[in-house]
């Protein structure tokens, strides 16, 4: 049995001896900024200590709400953000300095999101280091699993590193990158692939930031990892422990990090959406409770619990509230937080942790031999590996080897369910408000700021400061991305399956 204590290198048993309650964050956002603002105020009143802004797909893909490609997608999977005017509405009446953590799914547009909140903070006279901003900004996993890539992968990587560099050197309170394995797992990977592909991506960001002269000890402490908490209870606890150990050793041995903060892997756990079923959807409450218990026992820092009706549509208000209540019951009633890493020493768990660690290392080595993550993205290696495993998982369920209650065993008729309905007028309201912004702003200042952004991008410099200026002039997300498209070109879809 290991003699390692919680809070000690390599942090298998947690990054702190006295971790306290994790940050409870629920993913949310839909429709117009005003509708989302109301929902956020309600969630904050219910006792949330951090929250997240889900962005709609046009925003994530750098398209304005009136772009023909945005039709039918505006305000669907998140809130539509076209310009700073929308952020002003979104955050109306919410004091920035009272928020511990605002998370967001900006990846391909990480630099635009950072610029939005830098501009808002400036407007309100608040130091950006006085509030927490958590930008996902992990564009590489978009090419592998999540699908909101805009430019070729090299350009995407460059822009993500611009954000990392800017935050590491100017706003160290912010999280500059959530190294995301969640989406890789959701796409059908194994737990080992989830962690190894994620850390391989992380190495691309780190290497590029370091090559720009930023020290690893400036960058690594601003990072989080975002992992799935899936239904396999013990292996998932072991995964969180193994991931911390691999990260700590990677930082110390391969990157020569000196600051212990660089070695301490902060984890954001998210219960696995793909484990939820449309059949007998109330069973999902049980699934997510077990998944979040695994995360709690695995010693994570931030948690999201999925709503039980997620496989049926955008979560209803009641289901979103129940998900938060689930977190509160586990955190405050069960005693799970009484001692860190309470399962340490369990023969099975320690063995699993060791095996996962060694498998993650050997996959990381394999990726390095193949030329690194960027190469494995461009040649399809990651995507193919995930597809293989995802197909195997499907076959295991269809053949009955893997049992899923309500799907391939113990089926019954589900009660009719009334899903959440998006206000159908949201899209036209958003388009109207975008047009109003364009009519009201100083268009000469916009053109000037956009031309400057183009020049900065062409010169290969960090685009964040120029983007802040464009945002302050009320340039739209679509206009900013269009400028950069002239420099970087478009990503081309892969047709392999």
């Amino acid at each position: 049995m290991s003699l390692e204590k919680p809070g000690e290198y390599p942090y298998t048993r947690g990054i702190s001896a006295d971790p306290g309650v994790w940050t409870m964050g629920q993913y949310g956002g839909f429709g117009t900024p005003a509708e989302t603002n109301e929902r956020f105020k309600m969630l904050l009143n219910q006792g949330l200590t951090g929250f997240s802004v889900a962005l709609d797909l046009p925003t994530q893909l750098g398209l304005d709400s009136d772009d023909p490609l945005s039709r039918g997608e505006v305000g669907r999977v998140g809130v539509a953000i076209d310009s700073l005017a929308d952020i002003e509405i979104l955050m109306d009446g919410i004091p920035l300095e009272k928020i511990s953590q605002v998370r967001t799914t900006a990846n391909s547009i990480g630099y635009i999101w950072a610029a939005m909140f830098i501009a808002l903070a400036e407007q309100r006279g608040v130091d950006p280091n006085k509030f927490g901003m958590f930008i996902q900004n992990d564009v590489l996993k978009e090419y592998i699993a999540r699908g909101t890539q805009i430019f070729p992968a090299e350009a995407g990587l460059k822009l993500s590193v611009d954000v990392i560099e800017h935050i590491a050197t100017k706003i160290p309170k912010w999280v500059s990158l959530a190294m995301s394995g969640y989406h890789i797992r959701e796409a059908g990977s194994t737990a080992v692939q989830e962690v190894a592909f994620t850390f391989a991506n992380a190495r691309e960001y780190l290497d590029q930031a370091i090559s720009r002269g930023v020290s690893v000890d400036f960058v690594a402490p601003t990072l989080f990892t975002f992992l799935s908490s899936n239904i396999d209870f013990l292996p998932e606890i072991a995964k969180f422990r193994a991931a911390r150990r691999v990260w700590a050793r990677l930082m110390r041995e391969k990157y020569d990090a000196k600051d212990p903060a660089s070695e301490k892997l902060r984890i954001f756990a998210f219960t696995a959406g793909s484990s939820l079923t449309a059949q007998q959807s109330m069973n999902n409450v049980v699934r997510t409770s077990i998944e979040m218990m695994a995360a709690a026992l695995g010693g994570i820092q931030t948690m999201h619990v999925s709503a039980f009706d997620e496989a049926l549509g955008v979560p209803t208000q009641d289901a979103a509230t129940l998900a938060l209540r689930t977190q509160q019951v586990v955190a405050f009633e069960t005693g799970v937080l009484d001692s860190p890493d309470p399962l340490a020493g369990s023969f099975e768990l320690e063995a699993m942790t060791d095996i996962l660690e060694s498998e993650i290392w050997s996959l990381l080595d394999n990726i390095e031999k193949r030329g690194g993550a960027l190469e494995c993205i461009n040649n399809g290696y990651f995507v193919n590996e995930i597809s293989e495993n995802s197909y195997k998982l499907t076959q295991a369920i269809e053949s009955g080897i893997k049992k899923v209650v309500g799907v391939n065993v113990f089926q019954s008729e589900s009660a009719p369910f009334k899903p959440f309905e998006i206000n159908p007028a949201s899209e036209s309201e958003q388009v109207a408000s975008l047009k109003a912004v364009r009519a009201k702003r100083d268009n000469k200042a916009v053109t000037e700021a956009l031309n400057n952004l183009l020049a900065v991008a062409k010169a290969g410099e960090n685009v964040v400061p120029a983007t802040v200026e464009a945002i302050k002039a009320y340039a739209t997300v679509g206009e900013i991305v269009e400028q950069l498209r002239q420099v970087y070109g478009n990503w081309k879809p892969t047709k392999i399956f």
Partner: protein
Amino acid sequence: MSETSHSTPIRVVVAKPGLDGHDRGAKVVARALRDAGFEVIYTGLHQSPEQIIATAIQEDVQAIGLSILSGAHMTIFTRIMKLLHENKAESIVVFGGGIIPEADKIALKEIGVGEIFTPGTPTVEIISWLKNAVVA
């Protein structure tokens, strides 16, 4: 059923219309159809309805499978059915899958979508439905 009805494989386009990037389901269905003897063309992500129809006509397929989980299904499926009609290609069978509420499923069938398969549907069910739908 005679042997001849299966002598030429059924050609099908599996497409990801709109901006949704969740392609796990689409790829699993594409592979399952291929394993079942279909000739499958997968479009990749971010396809406009116009691009999908162009691919379907160019590839001379008998069916189009659409996967969408972003909630934009009503707008996008409606546009695809309209384009099929405009291109006089109504003989192409259209089916779909994703996070699609029951009420929308009914509405989509009314505009001519053959079937909607929601999460948890076994791939064998999709295969057997498609074989019948195309033969008919």
